[in-house]
């Protein structure tokens, strides 16, 4: 009924004070919610991005090799065969890269750190070099310039290393310096390799403290491994959303091909090491995971953040709901005689209900749309400003050096619809009361 719409809208305009106050409150809560959601999405994007660059492919085929029951090594043997099965069985496969894994001490003239080693074949890499952002000198060197030195693609050369800026700072090294990697081989002997720092990458929060990048040959040499081994196959898909399903497919294919698999366990590879060492078997078992497994220790950040966001929003929404209910009571009281008149003329209870609900619906919709637009604009602006995150702790949580907010149309829609629904629901009770007014009593109502 057009006339109900027009009465509802005009009633809103009729009391500009009340309407704008409520609209402001609803709008600001929407803005707040949109900002929180954008931040959450931003963190999520950081997580997905860095996780699938630094820690995992979309699907990972890693392995444990146990020469004796008491030892375990992060190795996939006979990688050629494994790779063939994976290539043949993965739907929507984009490309596969190898990561050779090790763990060692990295020593410079002035410092030492423990770190995982990621051995890679530069020529095979896909997104890695695009995603790895190099740090300006100032990030790792006292009094350094804003200039970026080095080139990560030089990992194609022998005896090279790429560090993260936090690691470089602790080691006191710059691009061009030489560091020494110390590891233990399978037989327990110590091995070292001298490598040149060819690039220093920007930190990626927690993920960047655990690994350095070296050419595959460095890892093979340090551990005296043959060419047909690797640490893990990182499988990249056309569609990241298919990761988990594809993992299941790959597991099935590998089992069918006669490989031994560890049961799926949603933990990063190295978290399982101790358990595997204690297990009573020898030989090779593959460990197939998808990317979320490898960063499962980080997802709590997102869960906590989202829970907190919704909790805060809920509190605000409840406050607003009380305000709306109160305003609606006033509106019903002020317009009781009008309701009585409409009922006397022949307006049904249902239409009275609709009339009052429409009013709060329009108020809610208008305010949330404006609020969401404002929130989106602020989020995009903050994101574009690339505001640096000052504290290490926050950086660790946000998984980024800069504040990253992502605006998705879906999240705007969720904010608008959920808050509009809430607004309308808060008006439901007063609206029902209005519709149930007896015409005679409403008509004789005096202010």
């Amino acid at each position, binding site marked *: 009924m057009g006339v109900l719409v*027009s*009465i509802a809208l005009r*009633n809103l305009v009729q009391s500009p004070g009340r309407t704008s106050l409520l609209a402001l409150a609803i709008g600001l809560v929407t803005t707040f919610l949109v900002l929180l959601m954008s931040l959450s999405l931003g963190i999520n994007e950081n997580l997905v991005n860095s996780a699938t660059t630094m820690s995992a492919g979309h699907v990972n085929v890693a392995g444990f090799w146990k020469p004796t029951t008491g030892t375990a090594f992060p190795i996939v043997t006979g990688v050629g065969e494994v790779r063939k099965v994976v290539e043949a069985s993965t739907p929507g496969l984009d490309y596969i890269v190898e990561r050779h894994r090790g763990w060692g001490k990295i020593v410079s003239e002035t410092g030492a750190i423990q770190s995982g080693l990621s051995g890679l074949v530069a020529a095979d890499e896909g997104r890695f070099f695009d995603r790895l952002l190099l740090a300006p000198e100032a990030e790792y060197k006292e009094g350094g310039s804003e200039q970026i030195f080095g080139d990560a693609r030089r990992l194609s050369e022998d005896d090279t290393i790429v560090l993260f800026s936090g690691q470089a700072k602790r080691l006191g090294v710059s691009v061009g310096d030489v560091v020494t990697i110390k590891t233990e081989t399978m037989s327990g002997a110590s091995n070292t390799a001298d490598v040149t720092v060819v690039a220093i990458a920007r930190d990626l929060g927690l993920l960047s403290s655990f690994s350095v990048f070296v050419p595959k040959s460095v890892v093979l040499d340090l551990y005296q491994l043959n060419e047909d081994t690797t640490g893990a196959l990182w499988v990249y898909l056309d569609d990241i959303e298919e990761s988990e399903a594809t993992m299941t497919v790959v597991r099935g294919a590998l089992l069918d091909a006669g490989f031994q698999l560890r049961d799926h366990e949603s933990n990063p590879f190295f978290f399982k090491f101790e358990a595997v060492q204690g297990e009573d078997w020898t030989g090779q078992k593959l460990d197939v995971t998808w990317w979320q497994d490898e960063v499962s220790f980080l997802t709590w950040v997102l869960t906590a953040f989202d829970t907190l966001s919704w909790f805060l929003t809920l509190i605000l929404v409840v406050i607003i709901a009380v305000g709306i209910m109160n305003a609606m009571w006033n509106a019903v009281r002020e317009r009781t005689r009008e309701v*009585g008149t409409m009922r006397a*003329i*022949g307006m049904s209870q249902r239409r009275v209900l609709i009339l009052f609900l429409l009013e709060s619906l329009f108020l809610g919709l208008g305010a949330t749309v404006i609020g969401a637009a404002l929130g989106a604009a602020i989020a995009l602006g903050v994101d574009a400003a690339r505001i640096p995150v000052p504290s290490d702790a926050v950086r660790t949580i946000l998984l980024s050096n800069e504040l990253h907010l992502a605006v998705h149309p879906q999240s705007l829609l969720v904010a608008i619809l959920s808050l509009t629904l809430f607004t309308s629901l808060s008006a439901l009770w007063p609206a029902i009361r209005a519709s149930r007014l007896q015409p005679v009593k409403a008509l004789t109502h005096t202010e």
Partner: protein
Amino acid sequence: MSGIVRLMDVVKDYPLGKVTVHALRKVNLTIDKGEFTVIAGPSGSGKTTLLNLIGCIDVATAGEVLVDGKSTGKLTDKQLTSLRLNSIGFIFQSFNLINVLDIRQNVEFPLLLQGGLSKAERQARVDDVVDKVGLRQFASQRPNELSGGQRQRVAIARALVTRPAIVLADEPTANLDSTTGTQIIDLMKEINHQDHTTFIFSTHDEKVMKRADRVVRILDGMLEAAGLSESRGPSESGGEQVHA
């Protein structure tokens, strides 16, 4: 035996704290189609109560009220609403227009509630009644821009637009000066003559009473005995109307 409105032994009690107010005590009344009837009586005599029952915005405590052939005591809220919408037009003492709508929209409102008419048909009806009450040039103004007399004309137009069987008016002239009041009554009477619309209105203004065809006197919730209470003007309606 016919009659567009029939009240039979109608009682209306209002509980008021511990006591009960007997607003109507066994009222019997028949009003025929096309009558122009005044309910006259002093303040508190039960005029509004009586009109509310006829108008189906309230139900009797006992007895039977028949409006347009339907016994209102047996109807649901939905059916009463529909009866009000389709058979009754209301004119209120304080006009009761919808302030956010302009004159034309106020008059059109009952038609929109009814549904069924096309936009053009509604337009024609609205123009017709707005002309009849002489407010054509005010059609796009808001109620609060009009004088009391003009507002009551809008209310009359709104009551007439659905072409109801009965138009009820509870002291329609009480908020108007006597000249304007007389004009309003004359307008209603004119419409009554032209369209044979049944008008029932209440007043305690002697001047207004004189213009009615039929005066029903009420006192303390009882209609005064026939002959004594009824004064009939030169109306075409006739027959025994009051059973007291």
